[in-house]
């Protein structure tokens, strides 16, 4: 089967049970997307699939023939980090770094959702509260949340 990962076509010969996350990590050696729980409960595996943020650990790769996948490795443009990546550096939006690629990919997808006017479960008038709610699918055990949200506000 074929995937387009970070703009590059990739042919894969895989067990049908292989998740998109394992296809990326174990077969394409793109280890930016992390495996924290393998069950859609932590968000560390978040990638953009056809432009939308998803938990790649719950996607069967075989079901995504010719899909376009963007991982944290593919966010930089022209050798320059993505604004969200820069903001994470600026705000110390991480400690151990393991949830970081998922937080960043999720934030990129989330900001696009915000731009499109998608609603969230909290009132629209409080941007930080909005971002906190929208980012709640990305756990951080080091507790960098209080730095991540201002980073995302800055990158917006």
């Amino acid at each position, binding site marked *: 089967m074929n995937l387009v990962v970070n703009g590059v076509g990739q042919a894969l010969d895989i*067990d*049908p*049970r292989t*998740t998109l996350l394992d296809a990326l990590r174990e077969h394409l050696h793109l280890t930016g997307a992390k495996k924290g729980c*393998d*069950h*859609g409960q932590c*968000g560390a595996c*978040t990638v953009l699939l056809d432009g*939308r*943020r*998803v*938990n790649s650990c*719950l*996607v*069967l790769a*075989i*079901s995504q*023939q010719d899909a376009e996948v963007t991982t944290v490795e593919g966010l930089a443009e022209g050798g320059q980090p993505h604004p969200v990546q820069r903001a994470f550096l600026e705000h110390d939006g991480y400690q151990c770094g393991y949830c970081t690629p998922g937080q960043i990919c*999720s934030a990129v*997808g*989330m900001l696009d*959702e915000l731009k*499109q*006017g*998608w*609603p*969230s*479960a909290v009132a629209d008038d409080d941007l930080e509260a909005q971002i*906190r*709610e*929208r*980012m*709640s*699918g*990305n756990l951080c055990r080091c507790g960098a949340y209080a730095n991540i949200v201002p980073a995302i506000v800055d990158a917006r």
Partner: protein
Amino acid sequence: MKTFEYTAVTDVRSAVGAFPEGAAFLAGGTNLVDLMKLGVATPDVLVDINKLPLHEIEELPGGGLRIGAGVRNSDLAAHPRVRSDFPVLSEALLNGASGQLRNMATTGGNLLQRTRCRYFTDMTKPCNKHEPGSGCPAREGDHRNLAILGASEHCVATHPSDMAVALAALDAVVLITGPDGDREVPVTELHRLPGDAPQLDSVLRHGELITAVEVPALAFARVSAYRKARDRASYAFAVGSVAAALDVEDGVVRDVRLAFGAVAAKPWRAYRAEEALRNGRATRESFLAAADAELTEAEPLRDNAYKVTLIRNLVASTLERLVTA
């Protein structure tokens, strides 16, 4: 995860026409792939239905909506008509799961989510849902977030969906197609109470596929809300929830729709409470009395009696909010 044969279908007839024994439909995968990894779901064949033309939200004459089974939760929550005319549905969706999961999960799949009972999701433990007759350790064990209504000695599981609670309140109807033709089932009758066959979650028969959900017009659903209580501020299943739509005039309840979540194996439509509310005063006292009318049937276990209080209070606070809305 057991090995399986993978096949993708592009039209509904071939999806249901060639659906072998031991097959499962793959939609968003957020629940099925999780359960396959745990060994709880072990399909021999996965029929991928993501390419079926079931991704549209259509407006029905009179103001209702037909929601394709493949519509993603995030798209449904963001749909302008859903937000304006059925806010309870949008709110229920947005209170569920995470942004990522809502981008994946579908309308049909969300309805067919399986319970989060901690014995059901662990194949090393007995559970009448995954092995009928093996017993229900939850009754004596961990059941803090399990059923207070409609349970049986064989199973005390709850249905985890938020969306389904809103749809139950809205009298939504599930459109089903199958080897023997098409049929319609109200959302309130889609899920089964466990009785003595807790392994059967729903009334769907082998090879049947949900193709759409129809939400009928309901003018006063513009004044509706979903209130969910949970153990952290977000990204957690409900410990109790209420979906409500309210029509009040001059302080009197003209009509109401009310359903409870996280209390039973199905979204619990509170008909008795609705009956108690109609034509009564729109006050906290009457809201609490109506909740009590519904909850007289509750049979809490050792550790989940708090849900009776929680639902009671949620009914009152949600309806109070709608009165002032």
